[in-house]
């Protein structure tokens, strides 16, 4: 049986409580008691796109950061392409591309090309291979015109595309995206989603796990949806199956019913 692209089993993560003042000095050594993830289990198959849907603080970013080897799990396991994120982080990093929509993470005074070449070579691409991939990705992501400009002069939308290109430079099997359209305006976000769908997902050789609380984004991109609330995985299935299971007609309703929430304002509160 083929190993799934991503396999998460009974994953738990707790953090030490946040401290201020002099107590901040003991915080790094405190026992982790604040639960962020609790018994999360799911798989992502080869070429599949799975969305993590949940409110702020639900544990989506924590989960992605564990998979990206930036956090250590408290218990359970997280595997990418058959490699354990805690025990074999270098092998995991060989197989993944990571892009967080919240920060840019580029050297502002280097050009787009210089940044991409630097990160590509740190991912052990030869100079020639890095240059070739940069040319390919620049064409694919419509970045050719801006590649030789310092990244401090680029717009947020362009930086997002550049960041996605960086994540794909070493042709990873798995792509992790954390709220990829968070800092984009509506038009740029729509472009970015279409681009992701046509350029990354359609070819079918990259598995995608992405966190979002933008429902149209989830509906457009995801083959299956994992709904997370307060660190617990409530459901993981296709949109059709989730609607069928909850008797809901929209993804919003699915989420509210599974999370046992009611909206703060109903349609009746809207002014006539």
């Amino acid at each position, binding site marked *: 049986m083929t190993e799934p692209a991503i396999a998460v089993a009974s994953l738990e993560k707790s953090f030490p409580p946040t401290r201020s003042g002099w107590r*901040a000095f003991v915080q790094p050594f405190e026992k982790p008691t604040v639960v*962020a993830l609790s018994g999360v289990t799911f798989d992502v198959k080869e070429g599949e796109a799975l969305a993590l849907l949940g409110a702020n603080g639900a544990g989506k970013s924590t989960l992605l*950061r564990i998979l990206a*080897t930036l956090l250590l799990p408290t218990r359970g396991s997280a595997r990418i392409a058959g490699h354990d994120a805690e025990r074999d982080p270098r092998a995991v990093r060989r197989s993944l591309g990571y892009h967080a929509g919240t920060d840019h*993470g580029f050297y502002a005074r280097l050009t787009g090309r210089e940044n991409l070449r630097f990160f590509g070579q*740190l991912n052990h691409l030869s100079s020639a291979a890095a240059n070739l991939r940069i040319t390919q990705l620049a064409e694919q992501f419509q970045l050719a015109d801006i590649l030789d400009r310092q990244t401090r002069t680029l717009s947020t939308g362009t930086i997002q595309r550049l960041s996605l290109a960086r994540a794909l430079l*070493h042709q990873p099997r798995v792509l992790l995206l954390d709220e990829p359209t968070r800092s984009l305006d509506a038009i740029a976000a729509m472009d970015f989603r279409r681009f992701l769908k046509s350029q990354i997902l359609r070819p079918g050789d990259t598995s995608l796990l992405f966190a979002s609380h933008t429902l149209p984004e989830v509906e457009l991109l995801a083959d299956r949806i994992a709904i997370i609330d307060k660190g617990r995985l409530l459901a993981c299935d296709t949109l059709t199956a989730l609607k069928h299971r909850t008797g809901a007609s929209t993804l919003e309703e699915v989420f509210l019913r599974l999370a046992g929430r009611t909206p703060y304002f109903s349609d009746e509160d809207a002014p006539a």
Partner: protein
Amino acid sequence: MIRVLRDLWLFFWRDLTIARTYRISFVLEIVEALFGTAMFYYVGRFVDSPQLRQALPQGGTYFAFSLVGFVFLDYMNASLDTFDRSLEEARNAGTLEHLLVTQTSLPVIVAGSALYPFAATTLRIAVYLAWGAILFGFPLQSANWLTVAVVLLATLLAFSGLGILSASYLLLFKRGNPAKWFMLGLSSVAGGMLFPVSILPDWLQFLARFNPVTYSLDAMRAALLAGAGFSAIWRPLAILLLFAAVLLPTAMAVFAWALRRTKITGTLTHS
């Protein structure tokens, strides 16, 4: 090995390329070095006397003695600063996470980020000494350059351990650089920067024995001002290498532990 060297070169290239976008700053540093050298020259002229020359371990003028002390303290400063400054810059720019998800190992990232700052500091020292030699009679002609290079390397290795310890502290506690505070404080009094350690009270001389700066300056002055070879400086050189042998692996282990703690506490990118 070739891959490690290539990765180290990548970091050096990155920092050099960024530095090249700040050309005026480079020119200003050369001018600043001129003023700094002139200041030491005139202080030297003001205090110079036959008695003072006799009191200096390697002989020569107080200008030469103090200039070497000052520029090599700059080296220590850079060593203590470099690691935590590059870490803080990476954290603030958001590049730290992206570096840590590459296939390059942590020791290479840490060492690579220090290469350019060390090279720039070495260049700055060379500029100070060049101004001293060209305009103020600093005796560069008597230097033993091979010994100078070896002492420089040993100094760099010994001080780097302290710098990495300092970066570990920054990873865990987010602010402050106690290693720099302690070492600069200790070295300004008990390191032999502007006056010989021999004039200090016994207890401070005892303390100076635990300061790598003392050995670095002893060896560097002997090599630069008196042209000493390895046979003359083997003792301070061996002690410097001993500092490096103990401090570097300890510091790397502490840094790896601190990074692991931040991956447990989730504070890697917090500032």
